[in-house]
């Protein structure tokens, strides 16, 4: 019996080795590191069919343009120009000029193994990115804007989550004729928010905050330094109207009263711009209502209903 087992083990080892060798020789489609082109950013545009412009990392080839009926088709055509297989797993920035492209975001995450922290930029009709544009610089600018609390932090994962929300509206950084801003995409329509509203959205969404605010006091312009901040949303129903309370706690130094005024004004603008004008909940009021007033939330259809909430602001300074 032992001999049989030993022989069996030998047979199994031989089978294993053979299968591995076969895999290496015949079925191995492994791409070497040098056989791939690493894409830093991609621009998707849809005119007649999908056009994709792939931008390589610094020091690599020039950008490559591919056209096709599907994304895969376009990517394949673009890869021909480089003479290498395209690897999109390290894309830092995805730009697109048609809001329909958001339907393909899921495929980017699953099929092209794009990082969920990849940044997205929407190109408004009055802006353009050329083949010679420095996409690395654009990415860095976007990150810096977020870091400074001028625009809310977003990435592929955030935007996909917003898309899947009941409301379905997405807050996406956008390039307009005035530079970097934010826009709301909903039902194929885009709405660009003002610079002030974008800053207010940072306070309301509570993911990134500015490090300082310029305020005007008795001594003229001065800085209010922000050490840390926290946003808390709560809701209650009064007279069948949701009252949403936004509590922003800030630790900082400087003229707090003046800072409070600015923050409140930015937040009011942001709410006006998003909830009232664009009728889009990109702040997360829906989730807040679902948490605090679940019965009310389930009784309303927030994908179509217009928001008629009352908002309270409470800004604390420590």
């Amino acid at each position, binding site marked *: 019996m032992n001999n049989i087992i030993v022989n069996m*083990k030998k047979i199994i080892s031989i089978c294993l080795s053979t299968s*591995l060798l076969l*895999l*290496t020789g015949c079925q*191995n489609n*492994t*791409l*070497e*590191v*040098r056989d*791939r082109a*690493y894409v830093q950013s991609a621009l998707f545009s849809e005119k007649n069919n999908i056009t994709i412009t792939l931008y390589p*990392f610094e*020091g690599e080839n020039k950008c490559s343009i591919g056209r096709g009926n599907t994304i895969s088709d376009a990517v394949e055509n673009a890869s021909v120009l480089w003479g290498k297989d395209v*690897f999109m*797993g*390290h894309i*830092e920035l995805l730009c697109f000029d048609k809001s329909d492209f958001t339907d393909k975001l899921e495929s980017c995450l699953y099929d092209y*193994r794009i*990082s969920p922290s990849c940044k997205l930029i929407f190109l408004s009709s009055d802006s353009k990115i050329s083949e010679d544009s420095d996409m690395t610089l654009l990415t860095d600018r976007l990150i810096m804007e977020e870091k400074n609390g001028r625009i809310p932090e977003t990435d592929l994962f955030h935007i996909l989550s917003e898309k899947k929300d009941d409301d379905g509206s997405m807050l996406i950084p956008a390039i307009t004729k005035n530079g970097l801003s934010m826009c709301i995409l909903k039902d194929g329509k885009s709405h660009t928010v003002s610079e002030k509203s974008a800053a207010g959205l940072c306070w309301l969404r509570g993911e990134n905050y500015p490090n300082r605010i310029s305020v005007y006091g008795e001594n003229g312009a001065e800085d209010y330094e922000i050490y840390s901040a926290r946003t808390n949303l709560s809701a209650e129903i009064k007279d069948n109207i949701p009252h949403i309370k936004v509590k922003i706690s800030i630790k900082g130094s400087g003229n707090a009263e003046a800072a409070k005024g600015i923050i409140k004004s930015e937040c009011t603008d942001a709410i006006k711009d998003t909830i009232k004008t664009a009728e889009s909940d990109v702040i997360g009021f829906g989730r807040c209502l679902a948490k605090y007033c679940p019965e009310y939330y389930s009784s309303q259809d927030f994908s179509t209903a217009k928001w008629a909430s009352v908002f309270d602001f409470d800004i604390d300074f420590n």
Partner: protein
Amino acid sequence: MSDFKNETINPDLQQNIRRIKEISDGSSDVMINEFTLSGIPAALLVCEGMVATSIITELILDPITNIQLSNITTPKLMDYLNSELLLSLDRGEAKNYHDLFRFLNSGFAVLLLHGASSALVYGVQGYDKRSVSEPTGESNVMGAGDGFAETVRMNMSLVRRRMKTPFLKMELFPLGEKSQTDICLCYMYDRVPKELVSEIKNRLNSTELESILSSGYLQPFLENRRGCLFDTVSTTQRPDVMTAKLLEGRVGILIDGTPFAIVVPKLMCESFQTMDDYCFRPYYTTFIRILKYITFLIALLLPALYVAVSLHHPELLNRTLLLILAKAEENAPLSLAVEAIGVLLVYEIIREAGLRLPKAVGGSVSIVAGLIIGDAAVSSGLISTPMLTVTAISVIGGFVVPDLNQPITILRIAFIIAGGILGLFGIGLLGSVVIFNACAGESFGFPTTAPIAPFKRRSMRDVFTRVSFRKMQSGNFTVEEYNE
């Protein structure tokens, strides 16, 4: 030559000497000195080079040549020599030729008397031997500086000096049909599992080896299962290490002619322990221990992970690192997996060459390998710098746990092949095989992966960490706790 194993000593001295010459085929080193002792013909046999001339003269030749007894018979003379004279501390009696030759070739002086059917033997060993020196394979900073030498009795004394309790038992017996090597079984009889000792004795007695020239001859007989990647028998060059292990209820085997002692059962976690660990501060030892475990994984998996991730899962690599790698690999003629295996094989060739060559030449091999081959290979683009760095880190990592160097070397290459072909899936598959293989390893019923698997919480104090002796002293730990 007829078999002399059970042939008893002939009372006739001349026939006796003739038979001895016949058995030894007139070997030049067997010296037979015939003389009369109070009128009885006698002969003193020694093996040239095995005895100390001064000792034999002082302890044996002088006293016995001065014996002047009247009306003496052989039995009376034997009795006199045995009971009245203390010619040597190590005395014995050989009843047959097998024992006679064993004593003779071990450096004993053999006294044959006409009319006696046994020979008296006296330990007067004086052969040249290497003195106690620092162990080369298990260097440490703060532990003892003495290591085992080749002489079994000296090694026994090194252990005994550290453990004066009578509970330490040393059983000396010959093994090896031709070599008749002295084997010493050491254990603390109050701590060792009794079944362990008897099982080891059974295994040793069942060996049919002609000679035992190193510890490696006995190791396979003490291992339980074939196909185990990791050793289930440990060796040490250090008497302090062996003493510590004996205290934990293990059995040590000293073999004459080799400076390595075998210790069973072996646990894999012992490979990560050194004597220094017990000299340094516990927090530092804990840090070093954890570092060693991490390094073991690095030594085993780093090149494979590098290859698998670069080839199959590049999204896992840091962006900057990936670009550096892509640039470095731009002109490399070989695939990444082949490159990694090639670098490792070249290293193994250089290591083997450096090890076997004389020390003076070994140095030049390192220079040629390190400077010329390494530099030339990188600058010619044959090997990329990141690959060389990764393999170098892995190889150096292997030195941190020298005990596991053999499996690491083989598994490292196997993992590269698996990772190169099947990516992380392959590494997972091979990893499972290695885990199962390691967990199946048993040394006399003691799982080698204990106390991690099976998990023993109490023992964790000296596995990943090392608590202070204040806590450890109350443990009374013996390895029997791990028996399954």
